């Protein structure tokens, strides 16, 4: 794996963005990071159980994709889904309460960390079986084409999801039928404890695009504006020509796969090197060096964000558990009278 250069210059996409949008993106990324840290704390305290997969290190992707999206576009993701939700505009309280398994949660406490859905905000999941959302996302795009609703579906998957059959079938159909969908592989270099070279016969995941008759793109993540730009091109292709694209974004997660993973498999110095290119840190530098903001100003924003997440913690903690009868809800929809 290629390790980033700590002394590389600041990315151009970031330095050429305006102050307001940089500040906004910085704040959004920070919200995700602080949310995750708060969740981790809650997990350690036994407030949250099950699996908890943190998005720390990859925030710029969710935030950048959101910047590229239009109102009725969709995001379909994996179990590592808190970042998408917050970036899409989901309420932090509801997100946190979902982790706590509370009635006020995003899906009423039935889903937990791995199964976030927020339809009004364009979040279409939250899928926890590797690859099985890839054809589902193709189905959303199929419906868009069928209905002519002009929406683009963005489907995220991990580097570990590339070898599994459902991914292949979903991409085959998307390519064959020219569906307006973008598949974004967040290649964070590991599938649980397994580095890419032990799960994939080739390094470049987008080498597969040819077999699917899809356009492709591949880049090392730097910042949200880079993502907006690169995804933007694919979006145009999807919206205007109904053409799918396979995109691989090289990135890195700073935490273990889930809370139970001490991540002993990392090479020495690897984490530090990636941390030095953390999009949040780079944005902070740009805001200070280029847009003249002070450390205090930025810390104040951080304090606000931390406060929001602390409040989410309290909200979640104080919310009631679902009503016992709730477990029988939403299993079967009654057949409407006229049918």
């Amino acid at each position: 794996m290629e390790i980033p250069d700590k002394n590389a210059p600041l990315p151009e996409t970031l330095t050429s963005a305006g102050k307001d949008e940089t500040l906004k993106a910085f704040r959004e990324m920070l919200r995700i990071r602080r949310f995750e840290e708060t969740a981790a704390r809650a997990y350690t305290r036994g407030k949250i159980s099950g699996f908890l997969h943190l998005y720390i290190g990859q925030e710029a992707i969710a935030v950048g994709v959101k910047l590229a999206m239009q109102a009725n576009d969709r995001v379909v993701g994996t179990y590592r889904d808190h970042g998408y939700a917050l970036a899409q505009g989901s309420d932090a309280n509801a997100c946190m309460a979902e982790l706590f398994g509370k009635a006020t949660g995003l899906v009423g406490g039935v889903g937990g960390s791995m199964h976030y859905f927020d339809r009004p905000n364009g979040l279409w999941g939250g899928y926890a079986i590797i690859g099985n959302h890839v054809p589902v996302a193709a189905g959303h795009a199929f419906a868009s084409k069928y209905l002519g609703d002009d929406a683009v579906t963005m489907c995220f998957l991990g580097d570990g999801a590339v070898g599994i059959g459902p991914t292949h079938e979903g991409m085959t159909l998307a390519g064959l039928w020219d569906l307006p969908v973008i598949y974004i592989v967040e290649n964070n270099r590991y599938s649980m404890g397994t580095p890419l070279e032990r799960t994939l016969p080739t390094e470049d995941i987008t080498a597969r695009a040819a077999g699917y008759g899809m356009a492709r793109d591949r880049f090392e993540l730097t910042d949200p504006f880079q993502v907006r730009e690169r995804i933007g091109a694919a979006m145009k292709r999807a919206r205007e020509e109904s053409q799918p694209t396979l995109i691989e974004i090289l990135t890195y997660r700073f935490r273990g796969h889930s809370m139970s993973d001490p991540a002993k498999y990392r090479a020495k110095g690897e984490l530090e090197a990636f941390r030095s290119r953390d999009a949040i840190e780079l944005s902070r530098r740009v805001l200070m060096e280029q847009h003249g903001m002070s450390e205090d100003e930025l810390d104040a924003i951080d304090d606000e964000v931390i406060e929001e997440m602390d409040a989410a913690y309290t909200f979640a903690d104080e919310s009631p558990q679902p009503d016992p009868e709730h477990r029988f809800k939403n299993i079967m929809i009654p057949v409407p009278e006229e049918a």
Partner: protein
Amino acid sequence: MANLQIREAIRDAMREEMERDERVFLMGEEVGHYQGAYKCSQGLLEQFGAKRVVDTPITETGFSGVGIGAAMVGLRPIIEFMTFNFSAVAFDQILNNASKIHHMTGGQFSVPIVFRGPNAAAHMLGSTHSQAFDGIYAHIPGLKVVSVATPYDAKGLLKSAIRDPNPVIFFESELMYAVRGEVPEEEYLIPIGEADIKRPGEQVTLITWGQSVPTSLEAAKLAEADGLDVEVIDLRTLRPLDEAAVIHSVKKTNRAVIAYHGWPYGGVGAELVDRIQRMAFDWLDAPVERVCYDDIPFSYAENLEHLSIPQPEDIYAACRKVAYR
């Protein structure tokens, strides 16, 4: 009344629903240009075009997932499995997506979809192509499961399935596509969840569905000749079970036989036994008997296959047994 084959009743149901609702479409292998491997979609491509009658590559997981995703957006997909044997490669889509999405999204999304196609043994297809999935899909909460045995039921239930806001597994049979029967000209629906008494009787309750319905009716005739009056209940829906109809009959006859295409271990047959013994324990004069497949993968050879499938004589024998004859 029109006299139709089951395959025609199925096609008419799909056609009428596609005419009624723009959101309904049919997707599967060879459903379009080829008109369906068993000709259940004859004429539909011509009438509705390739947008709504969609030929797919051999990608059962892919097109099942596409159907599920499209249903979440608001369409009403009918997914044809060339046979249900091929649904095994799409099992996860049905188990983990179709049946759960409404629940796990807290009701934000629903999956109004029909998975249909022939199920269970046909004639000499060998073990990989001769499996009944009743017990497997009926096991799963979040699904409805239907199995039809006449043109009338096929049409009325398929129309209901297409309009149902929930995912429905709809079993047909290669052996029965050519079976004929009367079907009303005017529109009708049969509600999912209601069993049908195909032959009233007083002495033994014979519960059956799918391919075993005609066989059970033959068995009832054999019994009749012998002075044993058998009531034949066609379940038609396997999930949810029409418990009331079954229990009502058993409380009358005090004896029950279950006859169906399917492996013996667990499944719909065992579930019925459980409900009967629990809800009609004091009425039962004999243990409930089951007549179903041998507990083996199917053989191709005609004689072996025949022996593994419930025949009228086997069912009749079970009726005699519960009546202590």
